[in-house]
Each structure stands twice: as structure tokens, then as C-alpha cells.
């Protein structure tokens, strides 16, 4: 066994112990662990070919998944393998979403020139079906998620301004916005 592998195994065991402590409610251990995860997930996302601008999305989706899946971690097994499995899946989700978006955007100029839409010529999206569906979907979000979308996306407030208006913490707004976007994606896909 080489020196590098020994270090990796020691790191894996330490992270496993941190997660076991987090499962017992130790927030300090959890914070330390999640900070370490950021670097590991960034490296994995880059290796999988995720664009630099989207790496943080993979990191944040992975951290949220780690939070929701923490009860499934077995301290007898490798933490890094558990984390990598989640991160790989989230990287694939981001790559697929990018691929779908690029597909749409590549066709958009031609579609726009061929089929100009009078309703959109004044830049008003509200009357389109997508605008209506989106408004409806936003209205069906849980209160905290709806507030995050309305303040941060629709009203384009900064995190600090939105926190002042809603009385919620900036971190909580950020998490709620992530959850809201995920919920909206699922709703608009009809899942």
C-alpha cells in the first residue's frame, strides 16, 4: 500500500467519523465535513466535464442531497464512496439539464425568425402559456420557497434586502430558492 493511499484512507476514515458525529447531531463536525466535501465535489464535477460556471450548482445540489440522505450513511463503509455516488448523480443531472438547454437555445434563433410571436414582441411574458404556468406553479410553492422566488428572482432583490423584507436568514433564503427551483422544475415537467 502506497503512502498516498494510506493518507486517502485516513482521510476517508476521518470523514466517516465526522459524518457519524453529524448523525448524532454534532453541528461543528457537520460544518467541517461539508467544507471538506466542497473541494472533493468540485474536483469530481470538473473531472466529469461540468463547465466551470456550473460546478457550484453541482456542489450545492450535492450538499443538499447529503443533508437529506445522511441517515443512509453506514459508518462501517467508505464515506468518500458514498459522497462520490451522490456527487456523480448530481453532476449527471446538471450535464443533462445543460444539454437540454443548449438543444433548445441552438434552435431558438431559427424558430424566432421563422415564427415571430406577436404576443412577445413587446417583451411581455405574462400572457404566454409558460408565463401563466410559471405563475401558477410559483403560487403553489410552500410559503418560504415562494417568498424566496418572489424576492430574489422576480423582484431581483439582493440576499440582504430579501432577508430584511422577509425576516429570514440569508442562508435560509438561499436554501429555499434552491428547493423552489427544484420543485418548479418538477412541476413544469409535470412530475
Amino acid at each position, binding site marked *: 500500500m502506497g503512502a498516498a493511499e494510506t493518507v486517502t484512507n485516513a482521510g476517508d476514515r476521518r470523514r466517516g467519523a465526522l459524518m457519524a458525529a453529524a448523525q448524532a*447531531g454534532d453541528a461543528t463536525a457537520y460544518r467541517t465535513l461539508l467544507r471538506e466535501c466542497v473541494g472533493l465535489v468540485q474536483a469530481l464535477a470538473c473531472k466529469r466535464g461540468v463547465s466551470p460556471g456550473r*460546478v*457550484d450548482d453541482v456542489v450545492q445540489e450535492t450538499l443538499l442531497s447529503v443533508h437529506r440522505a445522511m441517515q*443512509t450513511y453506514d459508518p462501517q*463503509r467508505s464515506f468518500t464512496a458514498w459522497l462520490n455516488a451522490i456527487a456523480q448523480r448530481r453532476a449527471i443531472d446538471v450535464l443533462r439539464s445543460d444539454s437540454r438547454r443548449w438543444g433548445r437555445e441552438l434552435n431558438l434563433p431559427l424558430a424566432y425568425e421563422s415564427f415571430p410571436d406577436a404576443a412577445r414582441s413587446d417583451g411581455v411574458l405574462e400572457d404566454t402559456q409558460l408565463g401563466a404556468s410559471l405563475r401558477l406553479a410559483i403560487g403553489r410553492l410552500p410559503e418560504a420557497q415562494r417568498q424566496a422566488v418572489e424576492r430574489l428572482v422576480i423582484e431581483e432583490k439582493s*440576499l440582504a434586502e430579501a432577508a430584511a423584507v422577509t425576516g429570514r436568514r440569508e442562508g435560509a433564503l438561499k*436554501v429555499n430558492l434552491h428547493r423552489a427551483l427544484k420543485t418548479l422544475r418538477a412541476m413544469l415537467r409535470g*412530475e
Partner: protein
Amino acid sequence: MSAAPNDELIESLAAGLRPVRRLASPAVRALIWLGLVGVVAAALATVADLPALARRLAAAPDMWLAVVGSTLTAACAAFAAFELSVPDRRPAWALLAVPPLLLWIGASGLGCLRGWIVPGTHLAPMSEARDCLISIIGLSVPLSAVLFLLLRRAFPLRPGLTAALGGLAVAAAAATLLNFFHPFDAAATDLTVHAVAVGLVVSVSRLAGRRIFPS
């Protein structure tokens, strides 16, 4: 790649941390579910006509092969579903259910030929076949409820596949339990109805899994 949003998210997640009860291992949860199926089988055996069942199985080797196939399919699909319900297990676990499923389908298919090979075999009319459909779906409902209860705190990275395997386990277990009350030998109509029932249970489970699981 910026540090600030990640730091805010980490702070938020750490602030919201609560102690969690660790999930039992996949094998333990699979054994709990299979144990429950065993209890249901034992309860049904007390009211079933076991000598008649033994006579039917002894008379036609393909029938007991089909029973072995459906029993093993239920066990293997359940183990595969529970293994895939945690993130760090390989998707190849899904293949565990394939060999017994092929045995089940193959042996059941042989039953279709028996109508021509053994004259005088009682073939199921559509009304009896419909009873099979209702029985398989009826038995599947409580078995599914318990299975999804045992899976609800899991975090499958492939929710559709995991739920479909769970559905296959449920349908195979229901088909095995049905043998206690199967008054006739397998035939084409019967096999078709079984396939429809199993397909229905697997499809509904797959759809339900995509909604139930958190990933």
C-alpha cells in the same frame, strides 16, 4: 467557483442539523419484509387446501419450477430494491432479479403448452383469470404499503429503478401466495393475466417511487 454561496449553504444546513436515526442495513430491511411475506404465507397455509396444492405441484414439474421462480424473484428483487435504496450501492444489484425472473417466465410459459400436451387439463376461463388479476393486485396493496414504509427514509439515486424492483418483489410475492388458492393449472389466458397484473404493479410502483423518494 465561488466560496461565499457554498459557505452560506453550509452554515444554513449546519444550523438546521438534527440528530438522525441511522437506517438499518438494506439486507436487514429486506429480511424484515420477506419475513412479513412469510407470516402472510403461513397464515394462508392454515386455511388453504395443502394436499391439493401438493398434488398439483407434483403432477406438473413446470408448476413447481414456476413457484420456485416467483419465490426467488420476490426475494432477489426485494434485496436489490433495498440495496439500491442507499446511494453507495452499484446499479448492477438490479441484475440479481433477472435469473429468477427468467426461470419464472420460462416455467410459466411451459404451462401454456400443457393444454396441448396433456389433454383434459383444466384451462382457466376468463372469469377465473380475472379473479387471479384481482387477487394479485389485492395482495400487492398491503405488501407494497409495508415495502414502501421500509423504503421511505431511504435515498435512492435511481428512484424509478428502485421502485420498479420493489414492485416486482411485491408482484412476485403476491403471485407466489396466490398458489395457495389457485384452483387450476397455468394456461395462456392465466399467464397473460398474471403478466398484466405483474406489469401493472411494477408500473404503478415505478410511478409512485418517483414521487415518494426525495432525490
